[in-house]
């Protein structure tokens, strides 16, 4: 997927003006946050589970090579195949090769962020294979020709009215007078349209929430059941997953599953949790004839040895973005690539380079809410700050900003000079602002004063007043 992360500010500006987006984001708040809170209140051991989940991932990441090899062995034993892809291009080529060998014309797709990361839909379409999204949200954005704006709710930037408009524009064979006012109508119509496509699909492509080393299984969680149809009906099931999805055992997956859905949607478990191990066996009633796993690296093995390793614990629940006030203000598209919100602010520069995404880790108030809800306890603000340091060290940060910090630090390290200048400035600004108590316009703070008053200082600094008040020698013993 091509990135516009470098243009975050412009993207954000447009997003703030987008009325549909702003209405849709207002609805998100009650949907995810309250339900998560209820789910967690009902589970006293939630924090202990978070610790356990973190340890499982830390352990796996520390021995990733071993678990990946074990996983590959088990997939082969079950009759499947594992394909290793270093880059998006390699991953795309592997998928296409399978499609071409089977003479596939259409590919049904369950929700997979890795497909977004490697730009699979575009690639398949260019090469004669039509990708059909079967997740409702993914289907909506596919017919609108948009990328997802959230990792678990790809169409969260849209209102139901906007979706109805898109359905009318796309499903032209249907009765134009039909009602699409209620979410139920939209779901029914999508189901009707998609059902036919499932049967027509030659291959089914899904992502994976986990890969299990001890059994060679891949696991997906969905609420629509589309993933199961996607992987059961076609002749081949292709699993797209990145390296860090592997966990050692079924038990480990079960532990992380307990924090995943609660953090994501506030459900105890998603409606469908599906374990797939190899292709159809002789005595199976259904299932694909071929089972392939495409394991994507795309920079992750390098990340493993870096100070950003902890982001590899991420299980893509979306809690960080659901709770992020910046995400709530601008939505997911503003972030410009596959992964938005706080986890995206760390993962995006990790995968496409800080020079292409410097705004993402900078556009945070460090309010810390993401870290406080992350089920895997990823220290997101700390990792974002580390990217700011790289940004600053490499002089990618705007000159004016670096200059401003430099000048300020120069004075802050020279207390007498600092206090003298502060006292003069406070007095001048205090006088200028005395009448109104604040400034309507302040040249160096125009970003602030465009929409807010800038409060005026009282006129004397504390230091000045304090030392005037305590001129008696005994209280000057401050060093």
């Amino acid at each position: 997927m091509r990135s516009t992360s470098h243009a975050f500010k412009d993207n954000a500006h447009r997003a703030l003006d987008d009325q549909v987006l702003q209405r849709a984001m207002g609805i998100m708040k009650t949907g995810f946050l309250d339900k998560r809170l209820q789910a967690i209140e009902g589970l006293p051991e939630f924090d202990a589970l978070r610790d356990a989940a973190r340890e499982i991932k830390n352990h796996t990441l520390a021995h990733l090579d071993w678990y990946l090899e074990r996983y590959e062995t088990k997939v082969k034993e079950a009759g499947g195949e594992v394909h290793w892809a270093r880059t998006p291009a390699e991953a795309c080529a592997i998928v296409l090769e399978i499609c071409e060998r089977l003479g596939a014309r259409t590919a049904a797709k369950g929700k997979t962020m890795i497909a977004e990361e490697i730009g699979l839909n575009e690639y398949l379409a260019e090469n004669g294979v039509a990708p059909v999204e079967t997740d409702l949200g993914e289907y909506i954005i596919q017919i609108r020709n948009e990328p997802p704006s959230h990792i678990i709710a790809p169409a969260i930037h849209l209102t139901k009215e906007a979706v109805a408009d898109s359905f009318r524009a796309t499903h032209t064979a249907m009765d134009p007078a039909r009602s699409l006012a209620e979410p139920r109508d939209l779901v029914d119509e999508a189901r009707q349209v998609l059902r036919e496509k499932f049967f027509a699909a030659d291959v089914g492509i899904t992502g994976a929430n986990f890969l299990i080393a001890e059994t060679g299984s891949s696991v997906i969680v969905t609420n629509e059941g589309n993933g199961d149809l996607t992987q059961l009906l076609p002749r081949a099931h292709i699993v797209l997953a990145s390296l860090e999805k592997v966990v050692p055992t079924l038990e480990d997956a079960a532990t992380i599953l307990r924090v995943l859905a609660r953090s994501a949607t506030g459900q105890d478990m998603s409606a469908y949790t599906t374990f797939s191990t190899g292709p159809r066996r002789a005595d199976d009633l259904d299932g694909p004839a071929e089972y392939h796993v495409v394991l994507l690296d795309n920079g992750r093995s390098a990340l493993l040895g870096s100070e950003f390793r902890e982001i590899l614990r991420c299980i893509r629940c979306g809690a960080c973005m659901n709770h992020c006030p910046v995400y709530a203000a601008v939505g997911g598209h503003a972030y410009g690539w596959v992964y938005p919100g706080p986890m995206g602010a760390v993962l995006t520069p990790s995968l496409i380079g800080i020079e292409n995404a410097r705004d993402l880790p900078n556009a945070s108030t460090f309010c810390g809410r993401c870290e406080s809800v992350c089920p895997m306890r990823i220290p997101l603000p700390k990792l974002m700050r580390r990217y700011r340091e790289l940004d600053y060290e490499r002089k990618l940060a705007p000159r004016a900003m670096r200059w401003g910090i430099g000048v300020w630090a120069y004075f802050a390290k020279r207390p007498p000079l600092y206090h003298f200048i502060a006292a003069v400035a406070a007095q001048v600004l205090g006088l200028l602002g005395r009448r109104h108590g604040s400034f309507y316009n302040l040249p160096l703070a125009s970003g602030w004063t465009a929409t807010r008053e800038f409060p005026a200082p009282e006129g004397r600094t504390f230091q000045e007043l304090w030392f005037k008040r305590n001129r008696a020698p005994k209280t000057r013993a401050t060093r």
Partner: protein
Amino acid sequence: MPAPTPADRPRVGLFVTCLVDFFRPSVGFAAVKLLEDAGCSVEVPALQTCCGQPAYNSGDRRDSKDLARRTIALFEPYDYVVVPSGSCGGMIKEHYPHLFEEEARWHQRATALARRTYELVSFLHDVRGVRRVEARFTGSVAYHDSCSGLRELGIKQQPRTLLGSVEGVKIAELADAEVCCGFGGTFCVKYPEISDKMVSAKTADIVRTGADALLAGDLGCLMNMAGKLKRDGHEIAVRHVAEVLAGMTEAPPIGESGRKER
């Protein structure tokens, strides 16, 4: 908790913070009164400037370490360091040790200081055991939980308990109290449009409480919210919580001139 040296009258070094020093000395004097009332002897080291947080959060590690070293050396002689800000308090308490993870000696000094550093209201409540203050303030107040204080230092109940003891105060709880106001230090300058969107949501919640006053423990957040409320024409008095707890509300509210009757 540190060994309480002279338990009867600990020596407190007040870290004023650069914002309080420059914009609102009243908060500093309110802090001094509250600390003295709580039996502390208060000193203000003259060579303090800023904790270094603007540099730290901008990625300028070198300057933030320089400023951290100065602050550590300056405040080491005191039994406690008290800060009328959750954000600057969090910087010293949570982030100084992290800054020096690879310098053993400084790490030790940073950690030792961090253990003795507190945000003002939580110091009064948790360390000095203060449950009541002698103050009057008429009206209903909304209290905003600033992010660093709330999530780094666990400050939530302490200011409410102390405010509850102020004669005449009624506390009006904010919806979405744990959501950031959009200040974020340099964030509000670097991304003013996003910051404005966030503070607009916050001030809408504030107005909805019907409170007469808005209080918080961090001047940066207060200036942001006060500036927005005033621009939109809302007459809600915005003050640092220390002013109300100390009964020192003579100064006009933040962003006001005091010329009109409030």
